[in-house]
């Protein structure tokens, strides 16, 4: 087992990783930017190293300073958390060449899943259902293009090979819009990612976002855990995650879980990862992408399985084996997570940095809050606006929703605007309560200010 782990991240996930290490008897090294000097992860770690000024490019993305911090502190492994360097193959490669274990899958696995067109091809070969689409990238002047789009069937969506976060994406409803959409997506992708390659895919209306947490060891054993549904998104950013999905039956769960396992096996995946699917209303599902890291919403799965996924990840990265033996892990209840951001939902979710004058977390039973904030903490302007993940578990979905409403009502964060009121509104929305929310829920029902005309 590792003796000392450097956590190349900040915020709640850095705190989460430090807690796991402490319980495992592993020493921790926090790295931090200058404005994060009095952050909770720095307070909780055994050691800390300042790695740069506020901007992430000069601190949390500063590979030389992070590797050097690992070297001077004598760390034998680096946990990248999520975001920042978590899916950066170059970073994984540098770690390896410096004999520091990167806590995650092999750089080859990251690479194969990082290129969406290549991932799609890998999945097709592994027998994982993929959304009908072009094999590889397309160009606007290909004469076969209209025939291909017709074969896929409108509506189709144009996506950037190097894309993410909605950039370089265009939905096309009919043939006359096809060529302009491809050209616009190409130039947008070129500007955003330096790579203008785009591909075509069938566009699913009202799909659910369903993902499977997988856990894999070096001996090739891969276990899948109960699904998470993350259909409540705003501009492709997840806002709410839950497990199990209200739409899932056990036969579909088994089918999707096995497909997720095949996806992981196809890239010799090790440690923890997530295979994301879209599920349509007829229970057809399609591979979306694989996240080769611990995810924000791993907590939801921890609540319903009782597993500690960060400890699992560390154990597996250290070469230990999976010692439990079932897929279809029994569910302890129904869990829901809300991501509480320092954003102003009444002003188009603009970030709301500032100093927290009061913080009172909601309490038990059945409530979990993963957070790095505390009274007096200053939310810096440089990083994402996640303040806290509020997770509840109930015996069933209805109880979980009631508990979430109770917890949202108790949560006090003064000094910045937060998305707390938005979640209060979602929890009492009929469509959400019925489990009938699709990925268009936020755009369709929550476009007004959360404390708008109704009251």
């Amino acid at each position, binding site marked *: 087992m590792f003796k000392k782990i450097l956590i190349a991240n900040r915020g709640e996930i850095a705190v989460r990783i430090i807690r796991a290490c402490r319980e495992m008897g592993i020493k921790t090294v926090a790295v931090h930017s200058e*404005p994060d000097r009095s952050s909770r992860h720095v307070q909780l770690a055994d050691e800390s190293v*300042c790695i740069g*000024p*506020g901007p992430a490019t000069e601190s949390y993305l500063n590979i030389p300073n992070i*590797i*050097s*911090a690992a*070297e*001077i502190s004598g760390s034998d492994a680096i946990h990248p958390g999520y975001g920042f360097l978590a899916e950066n193959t170059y970073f994984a490669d540098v770690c390896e060449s410096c004999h520091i274990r990167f806590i995650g899958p092999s750089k080859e696995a990251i690479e194969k899943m990082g290129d969406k067109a290549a991932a799609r091809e890998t999945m097709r070969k592994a027998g994982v259902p993929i959304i009908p689409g072009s094999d590889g990238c397309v160009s606007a002047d290909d004469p076969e293009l209209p025939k291909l789009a017709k074969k896929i069937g409108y509506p189709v969506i144009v996506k950037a090979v190097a894309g993410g976060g909605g950039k370089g994406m265009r939905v096309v409803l009919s043939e006359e819009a096809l060529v302009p959409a491809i050209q616009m997506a190409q130039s947008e992708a070129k500007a955003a990612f330096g790579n203008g390659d785009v591909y075509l895919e069938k566009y699913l209306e009202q799909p659910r976002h369903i993902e499977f947490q997988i856990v894999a060891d070096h001996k090739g054993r891969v276990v899948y855990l109960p699904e998470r549904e993350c259909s409540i998104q705003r501009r492709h950013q997840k806002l709410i995650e839950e497990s199990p999905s209200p739409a899932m039956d056990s036969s579909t769960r088994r089918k999707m879980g096995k497909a997720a396992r095949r996806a992981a096996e196809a890239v010799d995946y090790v440690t923890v990862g997530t295979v994301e699917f879209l599920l349509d209303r007829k229970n057809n599902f399609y591979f979306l992408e694989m996240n080769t890291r611990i995810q924000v919403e791993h907590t939801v799965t921890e609540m319903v399985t009782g597993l500690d996924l960060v400890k699992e990840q560390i154990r597996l990265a250290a070469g230990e084996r999976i010692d439990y033996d079932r897929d279809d892990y029994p569910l302890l209840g129904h869990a829901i997570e809300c991501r509480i951001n320092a954003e102003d939902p009444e002003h188009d979710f603009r970030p709301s940095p500032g100093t927290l004058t009061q913080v009172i977390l909601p309490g038990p039973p059945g409530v979990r809050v993963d957070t790095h904030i505390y009274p007096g903490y200053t939310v810096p302007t440089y990083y994402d606006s996640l303040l806290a993940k509020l997770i509840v578990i109930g015996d069933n979905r209805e109880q979980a929703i009631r508990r979430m409403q109770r917890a949202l009502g108790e949560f006090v964060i003064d000094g910045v605007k937060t998305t707390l009121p938005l979640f209060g509104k979602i929890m009492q929305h009929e469509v959400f309560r019925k489990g009938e929310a699709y990925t268009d829920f936020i755009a369709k029902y929550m476009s007004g200010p959360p404390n708008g005309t109704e009251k």
Partner: protein
Amino acid sequence: MIKKRLSELLEFAQATDLEEVVWEKDDSSIHFRRTAVPSKLTPSGSPAPPARESDNAEPAPPLYIRSTMVGTFYRSDSADRPPFVVEGTVVASGQPVAAIEAMKIMKDVLASAPCKIMKALVANGHSVEYGQPLFEIAHEPENV
């Protein structure tokens, strides 16, 4: 106008390990290159506020050369060489005052302004973090 931009860019670059900066806007451009990583010259406290002239009777905060890197600190560039500077050494802008090793590569720490070394704050071979004071210094205004 250009001078203001240039000094802004330079200030930014000095806080990083950038060796080359190109700035273009409309029909004007600025391009500069530096040979090594100079250190920031800042008063104590974090985040470092800009140095300011003492305009009243309060004693001026101490000035430091700070590390812009994470690594192992060396007073000289090899074990058999004397230290770059000792207490009392007066250095010119751009003159090496120490070296930091990171990922097996040694980089010189350069003074970013003329100054006098008052005190070495880190022992040879110790590790340093970003922003850590390495030397306490005094301005050498006559040389500016």
